[in-house]
């Protein structure tokens, strides 16, 4: 085990995959100079050298600023023998390549009756919360959930980031990974061995009996903090991280809600047509009879992201919002009371 940051874990997965398979290449803007910190060495560039030194410019492809061209090139390369990892840096830039992502990457295998396979990973960082303004703060993963043919991962811990990314690279289907930069510095012990976290398997971070919280990306940390606070009030919260949104571990979510009878869904994306809405709808259809209370979503409002710190800080779900949502579904209005009857 090594203590790794979220970002370090991503770099480690990329390195392992590059070592394991010559067909893996990295394409993106500023990957040569390791501007975004995942194409350095194992821990630091100084120690083990950077990816260009290790793998050469044939496999580390520093690109012009041409997102549509980059994604198209990666798609064509994936259809003909390579396994590209595309670094799109900020999630806000995915829109530039939307046609390639939706019309080519997602559809080709299907349209051509299975003749193509599309082993390619698109990495991008969600930079919200860092006062970068509306052009760098997008959290667009829900859009891509609406596009059949893509897989979507949203890791929330260093080991999940490493294990999921490795699975993504080794998979024959296209994967989009959304990495919340608020998690970049998060550290934990991560295995030095190669390991693969499977897609479609949620992680239950905390077991509980009164309420299920399904939390996405950086919201997992907020949800865990909320669960701690609520435990002190006598509310037992189960916290589930789906880890991959496509495929989604429906069973884990439904089982948990069947047990607790209450659901709060938390995510940093805009509310309308977000992942939280999807999970809510799933539960309202599949385990309605178990539900004891309204399903509450805690999300970003349907608003663009303002620059000023005095404005931006209120835009994402935080621990307090989650605690309030749980109080609402459990009927607790007074923090010191125990689990109220409402909805039971």
């Amino acid at each position, binding site marked *: 085990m090594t203590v790794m940051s979220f970002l370090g874990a991503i770099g480690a997965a990329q390195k392992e995959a590059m070592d394991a398979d010559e*067909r893996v*290449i990295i394409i993106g803007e500023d990957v040569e100079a390791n501007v975004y910190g995942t194409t350095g060495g194992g821990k630091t560039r100084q120690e083990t050298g950077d990816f260009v030194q290790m793998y050469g410019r*044939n*496999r580390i*492809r520093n*690109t*012009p600023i*041409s997102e*549509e*061209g*980059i*994604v*198209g*090139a*990666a*798609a*064509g*390369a*994936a*259809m*003909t*023998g*390579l396994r590209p990892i595309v670094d799109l840096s900020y999630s806000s830039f995915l829109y530039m390549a939307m*046609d*390639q992502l939706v*019309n*080519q990457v997602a559809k*080709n*295998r*299907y*349209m*051509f*009756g*299975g*003749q*193509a*396979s599309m082993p390619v990973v698109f990495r991008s960082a969600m930079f919200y919360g860092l006062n970068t303004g509306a052009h760098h703060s997008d959290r667009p993963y829900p859009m891509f959930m609406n596009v*059949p*043919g893509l*897989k979507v991962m949203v890791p929330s811990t260093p080991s999940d980031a490493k294990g999921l990314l490795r699975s993504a690279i080794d*998979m*024959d*289907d296209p994967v989009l990974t959304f990495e919340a930069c608020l998690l970049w510095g998060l550290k934990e012990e991560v295995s030095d061995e190669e390991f693969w976290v499977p897609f*479609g398997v949620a992680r239950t971070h905390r077991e509980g009996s009164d309420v299920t919280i399904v939390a996405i990306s950086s919201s997992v940390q907020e949800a865990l903090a909320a669960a701690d606070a609520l435990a002190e009030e006598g509310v037992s919260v189960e916290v589930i991280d789906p880890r991959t949104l*496509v*495929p989604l571990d429906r069973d884990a979510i439904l089982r948990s809600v069947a047990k607790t009878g209450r659901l709060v869904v938390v995510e940093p994306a805009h509310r309308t047509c977000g992942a939280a809405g999807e999970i809510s709808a799933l539960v309202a259809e599949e385990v309605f009879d178990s539900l004891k209370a309204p399903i509450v979503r805690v999300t970003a409002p349907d608003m663009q992201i303002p620059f000023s710190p005095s404005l931006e800080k209120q835009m994402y779900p935080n621990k307090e919002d989650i605690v309030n949502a749980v109080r609402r579904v459990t009927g607790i209005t007074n923090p010191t009371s125990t689990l109220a009857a409402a909805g039971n």
Partner: protein
Amino acid sequence: MEALSDEFKLEMQRRMLRIRAFDERASKMVKRGHIPGTVHTSIGQEAQVVGATMALGDNDYMTGNHRSHGHPIGKGSPLGPLMAELQGKAAGVCKGKGGSLHLADFNVGSLGESGIVGSSIPIAMGAALSSSVLGRDTVALAFFGDGAANQGVLYESMNMSGVWNLPVIFLCENNQYALSTPAHTVTSGVISERAAGFGIPGVRVEDGQDVLAVYEAVSTAVARARRGEGPTLIEVVTYRYNEHSEGLRLGTDYRPADEREAWLQKDPLVLFREHLIANGHTAEEMDALEASIVAEVDEAVAFSEASPWPDASVAFDDLYTDSEYAA
């Protein structure tokens, strides 16, 4: 260029005839309701298609656009599964899931048509990137129209492949119209001349009805690419004889009345038939060749008609490679 063998030239004519006969049949079938949706024919553009596809080797890749069922034919794809695809049959080359707009035949290096105009251009660049990274000697060719030439992704692709010296050819089929829109009304400058600013050669084949002229230009670019000297843009001037798509009846005369007539005088099949006759073949041989192609198309239609419809469950395959995620 070295002289082409007689057999090679005959094969050129054969493939051009195949495209014509296949597309003429498909046109009729659309009008009779035997092909769902529509088709965009290459009728009139056969020289450009065959001159380009026959300049490629068997292992070379190509991508196409909505007007691209001629292209797999040009590259040697068998007709039966193509026709079955147009009809949406189980025996279709894409199992009936692609249709006319999205034909692909990976067996002949056809990585697929794109119904989205311009969108398959960078896919060809990606295939060339594979060749380059893996040290193969295959090249890739992207077909697209004069309309597609105004999609920005073409210039991103020319630049990237220029920088990386990729073995890719950008082939603009300038049939002078994008749907109802005359190219000269929406194109500033000359398409082939756009290459220079991106540091790559740009070639214009003025007589796109001459299969040998197209073949020569594309062969030169292919050889260049295989030598590791990078991409080329080729613009071929040609004309479509039919409407944009079969069954479409546009309300305005967007094409001058006598223009089509003039181009019909330069029918690539007639021109090359004459060339072959001038080079030792008889009219009877040519008639026989033409008849044999019609028979081939008859067979393809019979093959297709004999195929069942795909089972409803086929709609739920092939989204992902691990079927567990299919709905």
